[in-house]
């Protein structure tokens, strides 16, 4: 079976490279051809960007494209679509949705964003209050979303709304694809502590959404959202970075610049302790990957986000301390720009320090992550819930 899959993938790669040499084909044209060759999401059925083979072959495909001088940067430039939207559309969309959206998404002709979080629904996503009311074949959307990455560039959004306030919170949600150019959609930059607006606020005022843009049944929005969030985990947990890279590299650099000569023993010990934990965490990522590939995943796969968040905050802060007076500066000043990437990959130690504050908030706060580990991995009982079996309308909200 696996040999057949290898041959299938191999010959698809060869045909693609022959017709569209990765180094010499314009990016968008190449990505379109990659989709047509079934190498966009190899696990999708043929005709939908895949070959119907195991998802593990994707890493091999991407590696080959990069080696041949091609680009796979669409995966992070359009991460909300390619990483999260595609899987949701495959699982819950109609053939018409799949036909219409997947190829332009992969070829970066249309950027996607995710419209989940709200000012009143952060950790408690299911409490969200943006409403969609049915009017014939159209839904009318009103409300506000927040932390919308790529919202200012997006053509389409993955939107969760409340369609029934009279049932418990998880039961009254419905999921749509929304046209970000539709009437009543207002995207505003949300400037964060780095001075950049990596995110947006999105306001909906009587925005019409056709019923045929619904993913899943009315009232099934929570289940569809979970598909999206499961895909988020997969999209984020990909490669293991090399030893000594990331924030610890900034710290080592700052150490060598400022203290390589004086060799302050206390700072050196602290720096090494951070290096040790970074490396232990990296080894855990390798171990988790091996275990997952072998089909024996254990708790080592669930701890990375929490550990990384707290460690990254600590190391980036320590790096600024190492810099001494220079730690009081912000090189280049606050720029108030709207970056076109989700994560600014070459950021200064100063910007990394400020950006890291969000690590323990975004994608699940550290407090929520600890609840999840405690309850799902260790089997500890949950907190008593005051919102269980209570209609959403009656639950207190801030």
């Amino acid at each position, binding site marked *: 079976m696996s040999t057949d899959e290898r041959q299938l993938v191999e010959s698809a790669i060869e045909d693609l490279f022959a017709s569209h040499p990765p180094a010499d084909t314009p990016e968008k044209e190449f990505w379109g051809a990659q989709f047509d060759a079934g190498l966009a999401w190899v696990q999708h059925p043929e005709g939908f960007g895949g070959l119907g083979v195991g998802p593990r072959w994707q890493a091999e495909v991407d590696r080959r494209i990069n080696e041949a001088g091609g680009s796979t940067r669409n995966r992070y430039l359009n991460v909300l679509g390619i990483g999260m939207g595609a899987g949701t559309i495959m699982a819950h969309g109609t053939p018409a949705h799949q036909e219409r959206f997947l190829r332009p998404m992969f070829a970066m002709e249309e950027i996607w964003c995710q419209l989940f979080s709200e000012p009143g629904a952060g950790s408690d996503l299911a409490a969200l209050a943006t409403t969609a009311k049915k009017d014939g074949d159209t839904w009318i959307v009103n409300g506000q979303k927040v932390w919308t990455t790529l919202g200012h560039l997006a053509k389409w959004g993955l939107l969760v709304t409340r369609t029934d306030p009279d049932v418990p919170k998880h039961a009254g949600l419905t999921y749509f694809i929304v046209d970000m150019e539709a009437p009543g959609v207002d995207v505003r930059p949300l400037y964060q502590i780095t001075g950049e607006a990596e995110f947006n606020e999105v306001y909906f005022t009587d925005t019409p959404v056709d019923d045929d843009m619904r993913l899943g049944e009315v009232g099934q929005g929570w289940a569809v959202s979970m598909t999206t969030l499961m895909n988020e985990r997969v999209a984020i947990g990909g490669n293991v970075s090399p030893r000594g890279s990331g924030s610890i590299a900034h710290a080592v650099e700052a150490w060598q610049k400022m203290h390589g000569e004086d060799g302050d023993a206390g700072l050196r010990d602290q720096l090494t302790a951070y290096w040790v934990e970074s490396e232990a*965490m990296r080894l855990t990522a390798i171990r988790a990957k091996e275990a997952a590939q072998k089909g024996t995943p254990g708790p080592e796969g669930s701890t990375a986000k929490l550990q990384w968040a707290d460690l990254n905050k600590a190391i980036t802060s320590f790096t600024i301390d190492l810099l001494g007076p220079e730690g009081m500066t912000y090189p280049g000043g606050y720029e108030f720009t709207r970056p076109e990437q989700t994560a600014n990959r070459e950021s200064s130690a100063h910007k990394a320090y400020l950006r890291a504050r969000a690590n323990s908030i975004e994608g699940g706060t550290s407090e929520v992550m600890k609840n999840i580990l405690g309850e799902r991995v260790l089997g500890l009982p949950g907190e008593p819930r005051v919102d269980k079996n209570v209609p959403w309308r009656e639950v207190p909200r801030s």
Partner: protein
Amino acid sequence: MSALTAPAPVQPFVLSDEQRALTEMVRDMLQSASPTERVREVMMDGGFDQTTYAQLAELGLTGLTIAEEHGGAGASFVELSVVFEELGRRLACVPMLSSAVLGTTAIQVAASAEQQAAWLPDVAAGTARLALVHLDPAGRLAADPGVRASASGDGVTLDGTAGYVIDGMSATHLVVAATTDEGLKLFHVPADADGIERRPIDVLDLTRPQATIVFSGVEVAADAALAGNSQAGLHAALTAGVVMLACEQVGGTREVLARTTQYARERVQFGRAIGSFQAVKHRLAEMLVQSESARSAAYHAARMLAAHEIEELRVAAPLAKSYCSEVYERSTADSIQLHGGIGFTWEHDAHLFFKRAKSSKLMFGSPKHHRALLADVLGL
């Protein structure tokens, strides 16, 4: 490490089916042979658990890394790491670290083939137990003055005092690092030789006895001197000791996490299991995160040890020892806190792990010491 079991390619993190079977076998055996009651009985008595040790020998675990030609199992340090994790879980009072790791490795690396053939089969069989004598009474490594060897006839005479000898009271043979005119040398000496006086140390961790050993004109035959590179033998023994101790710490950490989690599920206050309170749950979640990273660090070092990746071990060994030590210490301290009053009693096992954690943290150099070694390697 030329004389150790032949190097194998670096093994994956995930244990093979055989290695998992070994884990289960050792776990089952120790569960019945070394329950808490047995550990407490032996530790109050100051000796070692002879029945459990005999069972370990029967299963071939006392000579796990000893070559088959010398009566051992010819397995690698990955297999031994699995054994140490289980020993750490049960706090088994057996001289495995001293004999199967420190003494055995020193002999494998520094002794001649004839010497190995003469000494190792009894170790593998569990009838001889080795202890490594390498610290002075202040705990300094192979320092002068610790034990001094001076020429006398065909052999040497050993004089001086050594401290912190792990399982020094129960060992049948000592591998003694002594200063000679040509530098450090290792000697294989019967523990009951004339002129040797052994005194138990009042230790913090009663499950792992230590001794002070005084050498007064101890006559040693010429062929007791290890024929190869003693310096390399001692270094290899301590590297293996550091890594196996880290694996033992991982076993202890995981056991403490499991027991404390169990308690948090069962203990009810304010009408709820205390594990439902986030203040309790979050501490346990943090313990889980750290125990998983400690496992990775220790497993990585063990597989590098098995593959004789000497360069990588200069990173992996101090990394594992410094990290696992601190995780174990923190976990055992948190465990006492989460148990509340009962965790402070002698009757409860929490203090046994707490003491093992502190003692093993300071054994073979503190985390700070190992971080300094690592910082040198990294050029920081």
